[in-house]
């Protein structure tokens, strides 16, 4: 069968396109772009060839042992020195030649302590605009041993989000200590001295149990023996914003 003239011409064009693609794929592209292991090893070589900028915390400790000892017991014990003071290998090699950065502005601390709803409740967070405007953070806080200048009196100082939620709920008039017993040490060591939480259905029944003596009359009542018997109360009801309204 005779191949039509137009097909031959198209075949040439398509052939040229395919050839160009193959040349691009197998000649122009470096092998490191297509082979994963080669790509990784080249990346490692490239990265390890870069000059070292960080001295590392051990190098800092050799001279600044007093500050290191203080920081080791503080809330900032897991932070690296150069996280705030910038890479300082030159300073470690010749302390007189280069000085590390001492951040005195309000932006460095704000990287971790500016309010952000995604941070865990209880993590110290401030509103930069209203919290002592224009004052340097280190005026009141020692970054090597940060503690609040005043021990918080109320739970809301750290648990503001829960406090705001509770304030609009039907539990607004209950104090936090109605349900949680917080040891005094919780205020200075919040992670190690944890407050208590209710652990049984009986606890909620003291206000919400049907037929109990001394329950507040505006609290909704349920038969504690039958109402959702298999579950704990807070598996269905959020105690800081319970849905029941008097």
């Amino acid at each position, binding site marked *: 069968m005779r191949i*039509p*003239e*137009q*097909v031959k*011409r*198209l075949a*040439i*064009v398509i052939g040229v*396109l395919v050839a160009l693609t193959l040349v*691009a*794929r197998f000649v122009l*592209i470096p092998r490191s*772009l*297509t082979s994963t292991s080669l790509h990784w090893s080249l990346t490692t070589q490239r990265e390890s060839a870069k000059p070292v900028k960080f001295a590392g915390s051990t190098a800092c400790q050799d001279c600044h042992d007093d500050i290191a000892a203080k920081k080791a017991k503080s809330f900032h014990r897991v932070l690296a020195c150069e996280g705030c003071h910038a890479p300082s290998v030159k300073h470690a090699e010749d302390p007189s030649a280069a000085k590390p950065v001492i951040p005195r502005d309000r932006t460095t601390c704000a990287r971790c302590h*500016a309010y*952000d*709803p*995604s941070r865990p409740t209880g993590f110290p967070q401030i509103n*930069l605009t209203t919290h002592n405007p224009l004052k340097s953070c280190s005026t009141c806080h020692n970054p090597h041993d940060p503690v609040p200048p005043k021990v918080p009196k109320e739970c809301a100082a750290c648990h503001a989000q829960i406090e705001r939620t509770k304030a609009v709920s039907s539990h607004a008039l209950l104090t936090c200590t109605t349900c949680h017993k917080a040891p005094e040490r919780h205020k200075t060591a919040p992670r190690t001295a944890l407050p208590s939480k209710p652990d049984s259905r009986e606890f909620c029944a003291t206000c919400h149990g049907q037929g109990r003596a001394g329950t507040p009359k505006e609290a909704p009542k349920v038969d504690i023996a039958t109402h959702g018997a298999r579950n704990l109360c807070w598996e269905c009801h959020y105690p800081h914003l319970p849905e029941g309204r008097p």
Partner: protein
Amino acid sequence: MSLTKGADGLAELLGQVTGFIYPNEIEVHWSILIVVYPYVTGLVAGAFILASLVKVFRIKEVQPTYRLSLLTALAFLLIAPLPLLLHLSQPQRFYEILLTPNPTSAMAMFGFVYAWYLMGVLLLEIWFEYRRDLIELAQTSRFPLNWVYRVLSLYSKDTSEASLAFDRKATQVITIIGIPSAFLLHGYVGFIFGSVKANPWWGSVLMPIVFLMSAIVSGIALVILIYMVRAGVRGEPIDMPCLDRITSYLFYAVIVDFSLEALDFVHRLYQSEESVKILGSLITHKLFMSLWVVQILLGMFIPLGILVLAKACGFGAELRKLLYFTAVILIQIGIFATRWNVVIGGQLFSKSFRGLTTYKMEVMGIEGLLAALVLLALPFVVLYVLLKLLPTEGPRGKALSGATSTARTV
């Protein structure tokens, strides 16, 4: 709007948030350019499906729009990747997705779907359809156009009957391959959204089908619009049997499209998954205008009513033309709103299902309104050039060449 603007920018955005959203949801990352992309791609698929009616289903009334549909599809297809390129931070690296393919990423496969549709289907079909015209134009045109036509025809000279018969056969085979390819191209765009299982507004198996049907609606409406405007500008009579036939197809396509979208809606409502409340407030607050008013009322019910009126009341040709013209413009606006509601709507609610954010469109920026308008106008410029270069009537004002003879023989 970028969060790199710092605390002030963040504070400005926070004011527009209702309820609770995660911090990374405050910025709408897929802007109006990503709305333009499925809209333009849909027009390509729809215009091609209309063209296939002539070749595969042999509907001869639609013949006057055959070449126009093909060139419209090409003009819009050439512009379709531009919104994506402008959206990229490093557009100059786009070719890397072609050279180092990643078959497990649907987005990365777009380059191949696009390249196949452009080079494997559309350009081939147009070349076979126009080959005879190109040879004749190369002989009759003056310098330098004659050289352009010579190169475009790949220096082909054979206009024997056997060779023309081969062209006709080839166009038909390519169209048959082209229909599933057009479905693939736009079904793929729907798939990109439908496969996001973390987003209840997008994640639906119906999404590719709904996209496809709305693509057919918008493509047919666009070809009608261009056909009518072009005839008006050139002072040519409009082929009313052709227009009546295409608008009938448009009418059925709108009904199927509406049924599918209604099915999707009812399905979500009946399933009533945990996202139903936030989606409810999404469509009653943030998307009220663009969904209920523009997409459903202006873009679907009113054009349907107009088309029923035009078909049932036996109006004269002039009034019918006016009614069709109004309907296709409303349908275009409606389909653009459909794309807007999918792309922007899907980013306005939090994955926590507890809050909504707002999309504030830039005007001047690279992802702004002006850029989008330019991108929407560009295909018409390309189409103008294509129509100047490749006349739909064939050389020397003759009636359509190969295609007509095929249609007339059936």
